[in-house]
């Protein structure tokens, strides 16, 4: 950023000076004055009334931008036209604006209102384009406006607008990383979106903003897998790459047993049947795999069974190997390489080989990846050996890569054909390629013992080649080969000794000299002669050769000092006065070491050992070895260096994390709904069946059954049954999402109508049901005091229907409840038997609502299903309380939250915690050691059989400014016991999670506490007048753009939430605020009649900074209401509005 802005400064400063390229610009005329003039006439044209003139001017300006010319001085003239009617002018103005707004921030603000208007336009495309441009303008002042716009767009009716919102998220994030928390919320919401249009874009945003928050994916995992094939191609790439990472953290290594076996074995059999057309082939594979795992299981631990979700991912990505987009194919290939069982990886080879027909850039990248893959899984590409043969027309870089692959693929059976190919390559014109080929031959020779002699002979023949480069390269390679078995090859060494007369390439000369020195015993006659010749030419040699001459001299002196003593001294003397200090040093060192003098120390005794030690043969390795620790297909892999923003591909976990996190609440009425979708589609689905059902019939049931029993050992029986249910569920959701995406257009209208009818039918139900349960007398009195609009006629009509329905669903629900609800809730339901029936009804209602949400054009449902339940509970509780309180008419507002109603969150699940489960809640009591901290009550339950010792907090990883006050260490927690402690966290008024480690005497767990925004504040007492005053102060002090510190939302209260207490209760549950007593109103101004619509006010301040938070809710007729939040902290304000809104409307 800084670099680019510096560049901008420089450019902005020199609008007319320092443009060196005038000559290239035909229109400019090449001198300043004309340039000035030209801009003047552009300004004139832009100011004119004619669209055609404006267009002409804009076109010329855009052409300037395209050529990299500076046009920033036209900004004022251009920005005026932002509201122009002509579409093309408008578009070009947008182009200009996005380019220069960063430099001219103040002027750019002039255009903002146009976009804000655009955001409200009834046409979705205009809304989308307004958001797109607004978010592309890099002006920091408008960050709050962008944030609001994104939030609004994220719940837009149109999926296209939502897609644009997803695109805008990374833009805002790069402009202001502070917004991360809010953006993550939006991402979370959009991830739950069910349209293919949004999926790719939101995952892209996820990857750029919060790739570490893998937990957000759990609930959406199956949906993403199922939607994948219908997502546009670019989105597919991003999703597949992300899912690869996800799968690595969530599933077990499918090859963990096989990795112990020898390579080969099953592989051969698999390649024999690699036709892949038939699905029964797939069955075979799976059977084989199972047999294999079974066989190994006897030797090793329990058998590996693939998680059905893991299988789902592999199955749903496989068709994409057929994509026309090379990037998609590569993405699937890397997914299979990293995730699939070894026996299945083979399918990707064919597709990768196909990509090699594409443009040379594509070939280049694909070959790099094939080179890495072929080291690990050589068998996979062996059938396609011929596809890697080199053509003379290939660019050199492609040739070298193909050579690499061929070398990796070489083995005993195919080496003869490969060597024959290599022979033709050596005759190529391209010398770099020839050199690479010789290296490749050397590698084949070292790897495959049988052909070593053949290769060596071939290379020796090359020594008589006329091209010096070829000879030199051969010498270097031969040297390496000879090191492996020098005894048998003294002929070759002799031959090479002769070459010193001709070869001039330094590296080759050095290699020969080293060889002769090393094996001087094999050539006792020649070696001194070579040294003699070399001594003669010493002064003219390259440094590298000189060093080797010294080396040779030293070695000969040690073995054959009689003949070479004088020569050695001569060489050492020459070296003593060499220009290069390396050589001088070496000479000095060697002289001391080998020539025995009286001074020489103990080392000279060991000189022979030092010089003539047996040296290990060099291992010729592929440069692509071990590159697969980078995710394949990534930039980092290609460069073999970590690129910025690269997400490390994690290693497989030791034990699989809880698979139930991916379970989505089962929607019972879904199948019914699919039934009513168009018949034609269903027919087609039947036709599709064979493709899926085949593989499923084999793998689906058995796998899931196995895994159920697997997990059952660790978890409660409930999760087991859930597990087996999930298979069928994912299938259903598959069908439904498909049909949803394909048909939403036609079906939309119908569905809407239907749903509306349903709502109408449902609405009165909860009310009529709840009435008999809670005290009837109270209700009646309430009815009198607050006349309702609920019509008694409809009540009586619907009553029968709804009752029978509810009794039907009751059974199913109670089942589900036991699975899903936490202990605590069970407790409350048990303690309050009378409120149970209404609660169920509410739940039913909730389900119907979520059915509605299935509609593509509805805002996505909130992913957290626990919250509403809790709210319903509390609301029913409130109606009870209300009855009580109405009788004595005195209500102390701050005590309305019963302590039992605090929401608890899970910190550590019992399974991951190995028997230790930890929950936390925000106790809402001031944390006495430090008033700026939020008190968090943590409850440990030890359900393991042994006791847990020394529980404490360690290694807190906090965002800057955040602090943590640890709880005192718990020394012993006996089995079956529960203990609670309180710790304080200063969240710095942000919803960033506090991450720390929870340690026991044996283990450490990473945990994080993320506060809801409502817990970041504490109540303060205030009178109504004070409240009003503060509210005004807040507005005036900043007095800037609306929406900065006051946010107002209209909402419709649900009927049962219209009571005063209900509102108060819900607001205080959502946020830790105190109510401003409204009675004071009357005291101040007795003559004013009580306001027609009651206003509820709440006050609080943020815990850390003490900024005021003022909330008021005005209720009107028919449940309409208005919510206003004033807060200096923009982020807190907007999040709070959202939370309260949710609390009040559900």
């Amino acid at each position, binding site marked *: 950023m800084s670099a*680019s802005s510096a560049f*901008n400064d420089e450019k902005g400063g020199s609008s007319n000076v320092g443009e060196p390229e005038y000559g290239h610009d035909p229109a400019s005329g090449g001198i300043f004055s004309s340039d000035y003039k030209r801009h003047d006439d552009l300004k004139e044209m832009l100011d004119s009334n004619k669209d*055609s003139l404006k267009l002409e001017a804009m*076109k010329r300006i*855009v*052409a300037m931008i395209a*050529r990299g010319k500076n046009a920033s001085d036209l900004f004022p003239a251009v920005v005026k036209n932002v509201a122009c009617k002509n579409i*093309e002018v408008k578009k070009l103005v947008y*182009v200009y604006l996005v*380019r220069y707004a*960063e430099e001219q921030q103040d002027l750019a603000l002039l255009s903002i209102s146009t976009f804000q208007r655009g955001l409200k336009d009834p046409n979705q495309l205009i809304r989308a384009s307004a958001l*797109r441009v607004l978010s592309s303008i*890099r002006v920091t002042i408008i960050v709050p406006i962008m944030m609001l716009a994104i939030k609004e767009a994220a719940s837009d009716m149109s999926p*296209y607008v939502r897609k644009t919102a997803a695109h805008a998220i990374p833009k805002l994030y*790069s402009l202001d990383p502070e917004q991360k928390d809010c953006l993550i919320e939006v991402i979370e919401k959009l991830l739950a979106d069910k349209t293919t249009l949004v999926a790719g*874009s939101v995952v*892209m945003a996820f990857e750029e903003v919060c790739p570490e928050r893998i937990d957000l994916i759990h609930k959406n995992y199956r949906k993403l897998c199922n939607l994948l*094939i219908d997502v546009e*191609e670019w989105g597919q*790439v991003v999703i597949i790459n992300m899912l690869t990472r996800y799968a690595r953290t969530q599933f077990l290594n499918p090859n963990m047993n096989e990795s112990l076996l020898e390579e080969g074995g099953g592989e051969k059999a698999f390649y024999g049947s690699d036709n892949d057309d038939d699905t029964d082939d797939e069955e075979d594979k799976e059977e084989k795999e199972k047999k294999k795992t079974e066989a190994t299981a006897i030797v090793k631990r329990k058998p590996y069974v693939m998680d059905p979700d893991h299988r789902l991912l592999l199955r749903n990505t496989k*068709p994409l190997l*057929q*994509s*026309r987009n090379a990037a998609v194919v*590569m993405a699937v290939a890397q997914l299979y390489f990293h995730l699939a069982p070894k026996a299945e990886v083979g399918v990707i080879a064919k*597709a990768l*080989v*196909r990509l090699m027909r594409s*443009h*040379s*850039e*594509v070939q*280049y*990248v694909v070959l790099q990846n094939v080179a890495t893959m072929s080291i690990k899984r050589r068998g996979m590409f062996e059938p396609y050996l*011929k596809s890697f*043969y080199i*053509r003379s*027309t290939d660019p050199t*870089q492609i040739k070298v890569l193909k050579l690499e692959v061929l070398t990796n693929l070489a083995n005993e059976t195919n080496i003869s054909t490969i060597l024959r190919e290599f022979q*033709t390559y050596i005759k*190529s014109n391209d010398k770099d390629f020839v050199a690479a080929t010789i290296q490749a031959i050397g590698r084949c020779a070292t790897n495959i013992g049988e052909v070593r002699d053949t290769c060596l002979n071939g290379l020796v023949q090359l020594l008589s080649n*006329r091209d010096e480069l070829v000879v030199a390269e051969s010498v270097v390679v031969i040297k390496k080969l000879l090191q492996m078995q020098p005894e048998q090859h003294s002929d070759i060494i002799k031959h090479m000794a002769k070459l010193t007369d001709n070869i001039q390439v330094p590296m080759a000369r050095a290699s020969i000299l080293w060889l002769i020195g090393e094996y001087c015993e094999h050539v006792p006659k020649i070696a001194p002669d070579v040294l003699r010749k070399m001594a003669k030419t010493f002064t003219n040699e390259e440094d590298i050769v000189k060093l080797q001459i010294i080396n040779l001299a030293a070695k000969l002196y040690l073995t054959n000092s009689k003949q070479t003593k004088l020569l050695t001294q001569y060489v050492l003397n020459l070296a003593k006065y060499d220009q290069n200090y390396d050589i001088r040093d070496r000479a000095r060192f060697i002289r001391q070491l080998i020539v025995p003098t009286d001074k020489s120390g103990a080392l000279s005794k060991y000189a022979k050992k030092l010089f003539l030690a047996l040296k290990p043969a060099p291992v010729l390795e592929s440069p692509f070895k071990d590159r697969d620790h980078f995710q394949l*297909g990534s*930039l980092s892999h*290609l460069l073999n*260096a970590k*690129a*910025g*923003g690269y*997400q490390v591909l994690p290693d497989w976990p030791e034990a699989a994390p809880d698979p139930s996190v991916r379970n989505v609440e089962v929607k019972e009425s879904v199948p019914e709904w699919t039934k009513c979708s168009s018949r034609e589609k269903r027919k*087609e689905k039947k*036709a*599709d069946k*064979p*493709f*899926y059902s085949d593989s499923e019939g084999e793998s689906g049931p058995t796998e899931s059954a196995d895994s159920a029993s697997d997990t059952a050992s660790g978890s409660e029986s409930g999760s087991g049954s859930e597990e087996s249910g999930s298979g069928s569920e994912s299938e259903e959701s598959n069908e439904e999402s498909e049909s949803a995406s*394909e*048909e*939403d*257009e036609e079906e939309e209208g119908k569905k809407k109508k239907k749903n509306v009818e349903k709502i109408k039918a449902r609405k009165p139900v909860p009310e009529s049901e709840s009435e008999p349960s809670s005290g009837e007398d109270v209700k009646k009195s309430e009815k009198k005091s607050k006349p309702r609009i609920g019509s008694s006629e409809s009540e009586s009509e619907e009553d029968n229907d709804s009752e029978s329905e509810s009794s039907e669903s009751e059974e199913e629900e109670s089942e589900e409840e036991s699975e899903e609800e936490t202990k605590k809730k069970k407790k409350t339901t048990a303690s309050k038997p009378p409120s149970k029936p209404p609660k169920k009804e509410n739940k039913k209602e909730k389900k119907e609502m979520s059915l509605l949400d299935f509609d593509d054009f509805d805002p996505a449902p909130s992913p957290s299903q626990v919250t509403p339940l809790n709210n319903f509970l509390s609301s029913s509780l409130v109606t009870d309380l209300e009855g009580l309180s109405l009788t004595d008419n005195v209500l102390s507002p701050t005590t309305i939250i019963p302590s039992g109603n605090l929401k608890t969150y899970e910190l550590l699940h019992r399974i991951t915690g190995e028997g230790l489960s930890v929950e936390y809640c925000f106790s809402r009591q001031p944390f006495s050691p430090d008033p700026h901290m939020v008190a968090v009550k943590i409850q440990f339950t030890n359900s393991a059989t042994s006791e847990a010792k020394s529980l404490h907090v360690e290694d807190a990883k906090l965002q800057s400014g955040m602090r943590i006050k640890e709880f005192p260490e718990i020394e012993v927690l006996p089995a079956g016991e529960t203990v609670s402690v309180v710790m304080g966290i200063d969240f710095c008024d942000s919803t960033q999670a506090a991450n720390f480690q929870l340690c026991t005497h044996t283990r450490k767990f990473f945990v994080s506490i993320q506060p809801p925004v409502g817990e970041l504040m504490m109540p303060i007492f205030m009178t109504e007048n004070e409240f009003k005053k503060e509210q005004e102060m807040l507005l005036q002090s900043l007095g800037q753009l609306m929406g900065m510190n006051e946010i107002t939302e209209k909402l419709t209260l649900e009927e049962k939430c219209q009571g005063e207490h209900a509102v108060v209760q819900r607001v205080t549950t959502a946020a830790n605020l105190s109510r401003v007593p409204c009675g004071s109103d009357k005291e101040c101004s007795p003559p004013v009649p009580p306001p027609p619509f009651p206003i509820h006010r709440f006050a609080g301040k943020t815990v850390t900074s003490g900024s005021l938070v003022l909330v008021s809710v005005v209720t009107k007729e028919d449940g309409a209401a208005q919510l206003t939040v004033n807060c200096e902290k923009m982020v807190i304000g907007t999040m709070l509005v959202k939370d309260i809104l949710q609390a009040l409307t559900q």
Partner: protein
Amino acid sequence: MIHSLFLVNSSGDIFLEKHWKSVVSRSVCDYFFEAQERASEPENVPPVIPTPHHYLISVLRHRIYFVAVIQSEVPPLFVIEFLHRVVDTFQDYFGVCTEAAIKDNVVVVYELLEEMLDNGFPLATESNILKELIKPPTILRTVVNTITGSTNVGEQLPTGQLSVVPWRRTGVKYTNNEAYFDVVEEIDAIIDKSGSTITAEIQGVIDACVKLTGMPDLTLSFMNPRLLDDVSFHPCVRFKRWEAERILSFIPPDGNFRLLSYHVSSQNLVAIPVYVKHNITFREGSSQGRFELTLGPKQTMGKGVEAVLVSSQLPRGVLNTNLNPTQGTYTFDPVTKLLSWDVGKINPQKLPSLKGSMSLQAGASKPDENPTINIQFKIQQSALSGLKVNRLDMYGEKYKPFKGIKYMTKAGKFQALLSN
């Protein structure tokens, strides 16, 4: 993802730049120029070049380098594939993708790039949708635009992007409804000096030109679908239907598009349609060499071999050639040592040949390089693999479309190695 794009012509000038995020100075391209200098051939510039703060990913098409600037991790193929898509779009819009065409239409280019990427992430890359947003320039429209001042930008807002078939625009209307399919097969082969085949593969494509009203739903079936070893589809093809029944079922985009490309594996024996006989000798010490080349048809299923073009890179030692073709014309460039012979059609009765002498560098020894011959040819009305379309049906619309299918075989990378 993609930060900026620079277009560089063959002489190393940046003639267009576009930024999607903040502006990146064009001086980053210096790293590219450095790499370009190091590379011996234009196509040897590495596609991915790391620089201290950015990464440059480039493709070379039509002698223009498209250099994308990347700041952080992104799959390189993603960028490469996108850049190629950009070139294809330009070609689609302007007929050619040359520096001149881009400079002439710089505003349209800018508008296209603006629509294709949002914040560096691809937004609309389907040609059908782009054409709705920005009308391609035609001569007529350019004239009309200059007179009336109207624009290239579509008046109505596009709807295709929002529909369930994102690759097809809505409201298509034609008076003549027609659907044409071209089955084009390319044969890649390497023939060794004795005339036997080292490798041979067939790569085929089916290109379609569909101009049908409304929302037609087409199915295309083959007589022998088993031939297709490995296929890749346009996104419109319903994959599951293909898996189950080997039938292509799709709602086509409007206009020209590539329906599928396929591969016929080397397991099926490929009939090589032409053969080459040659005799090239360089005598040691002599300044003369003999050159003789004859072409002939082999297995062509009775169809004529047309548009034959032979080219060969002769060894550096060859100074000039003096050859006589029995038909067609030949040229030899003494600088690049490139021999090319435009043969035309092969007459089976009188085989074309090229004979004569080469003059070699005096005193130079026998060159040890291995010259190869690249051959291009076409065979009309036949697909070498024997692939045949069975029938084409249309559902969803009432009219009767006019249907046509054409077959063609071409040489792809067809090489013969010469002895010496």
